[in-house]
């Protein structure tokens, strides 16, 4: 058995979710690492799309920012910011959106704006960026984030991005065409929406993690699937490729 970190299994599990996808709108940080790993292993033809307007980027090392020269040099085409959002993202041309956040709630709504009150925040976070429209328009959304009671919360301090809103039916009432978050991957396990309520439900535990660990790191009364499974361990190939990506990068894997 290989030795791997909780971050590594999170990233690898997220990259597996891109198997079969044609294109992915990628946020910087954990999503970018997972998407690049998928392109080198689980989804070889995967078209990586960054909000800087680089479509079909094929970076050989992880970019530090969404606008690194490497992304533009290796892209199939580079378009303006109005064009990437209006012509490419908004009509649903990009299959999958992969997002991170500072806080998530049971309906996979995300906060990337403030911790505390909006007018006098305890911590001012970067804000919306491209996430709200990615979550609106992409047919499928994948969320990747580290889990604790501070990040998996009962009430968001600010709803920056809508996952399933207040639950079943909310997305269609809000006029959101995409199907919403299909999966959420943390460093402890994997969560999928309940088919009826759309509440994010624990469906897979990473090796060595038990249900109590996950409950202790969740700010709401967590639902656990009746068909709970264990996440497949990373293969040697997955680990080696992931580590090679990190080694060739100046990017900190912290955001």
């Amino acid at each position, binding site marked *: 058995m290989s030795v791997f970190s909780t971050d590594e299994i999170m990233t690898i599990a997220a990259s597996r979710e891109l198997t079969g996808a044609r294109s992915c709108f990628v946020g910087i940080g954990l999503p970018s690492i997972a998407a690049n790993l998928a392109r080198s292993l689980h989804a070889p033809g995967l078209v990586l799309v960054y909000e800087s307007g680089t479509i079909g980027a094929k970076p050989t090392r992880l970019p530090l920012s969404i606008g690194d020269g490497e992304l533009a040099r290796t892209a199939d085409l*580079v378009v303006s*910011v*109005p064009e990437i959002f*209006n012509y490419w993202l908004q009509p649903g041309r990009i299959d999958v959106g992969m997002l991170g956040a500072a806080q998530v709630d049971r309906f996979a709504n995300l906060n990337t*704006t403030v911790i505390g009150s909006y007018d006098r925040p305890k*911590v001012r976070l970067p804000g919306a960026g491209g996430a*709200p429209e990615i979550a609106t328009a992409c047919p499928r959304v994948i969320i990747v984030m580290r889990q604790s009671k501070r990040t998996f919360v009962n009430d968001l301090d600010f709803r*920056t991005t809508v996952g399933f809103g207040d639950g079943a039916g909310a997305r269609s009432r*809000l006029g959101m065409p995409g199907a919403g978050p299909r999966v959420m991957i943390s460093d402890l396990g994997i969560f999928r929406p309940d088919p009826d309520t759309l509440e994010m439900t624990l469906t897979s535990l990473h090796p060595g993690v038990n249900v109590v660990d996950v409950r202790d790191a969740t700010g709401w009364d967590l639902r656990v699937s009746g068909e709970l499974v264990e996440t497949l361990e990373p293969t040697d190939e997955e680990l080696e490729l992931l580590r090679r990506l990190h080694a060739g990068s100046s990017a900190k894997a912290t955001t």
Partner: protein
Amino acid sequence: MAKFLSLESAIAANVHDGDVVALEGFTHLIPFAAGHEIIRQRRRDLTLVRLTPDLICDQLIGAGCARKLIFSWGGNPGVGSLHRFRDAIEHDWPHALDLDEHTHAGLANRFVAGAAGLPFAVLRAYAGTDVRAHSSTIANVTCPFTGEVLAAVAALRPDVTVIHAQQADRAGNVRFWGITGVQKESVLAASRSIVTVEEIVGDFSDDRNAVVLPSWTVTAIAHVPGGCYPSYAAGYSERDNDYYEAWDDLSRDRAVFEDWLEHEVYERGSVR
């Protein structure tokens, strides 16, 4: 027609206290030298506009130039927080900063409406978010053909837009390529524009399919090679990622930042 000016003269003539100033460039081609000149000329009460405030707005905010910020993502890309931006919002240092925040798509479309001479732009966004409730420039609009309820965002027309480009030709036309962000729309939406350029060339007959802003849409051009450092100009320079990482420490402490401001901006003097 665009006038060729020194950067000092271009800023003095076109950026005034209280102006709405857009500084665009999406990671690539960020007009840092122009930002530093605005700081040196001690402009005050500016409304800064920028999708990704980046280090350039962190510096302007920390130097006390800004009263308000219109933006869509305020972080140090791949590194973390913008500490001067956070200090202004969390602690009113050096003074309070008003915000009008959007999503990238929303703010980009505000420039599109400004460039198009329309009062607003339409997009499918903001429904169910708290972003909407905190901005007075977002509203609902109903499609007259389908009845779909969509978001309207108010047109944005800056007093002046500042960008950095790879080239101007001798007639004052401006050309840039690579990641082109929202610079074309932000210049066409503005009353005035300032462009710093890496190089002045003969003409653009070799390629007119890059983004070209004709001379009569630009107010002032200043020849400032390296004027986007530590950002980059494709074909001329590489992004200095180490600088972005070093800024995290440098900007965290007010006194260290003020020391940086003194030595790296005020004492350096203007680019003439």
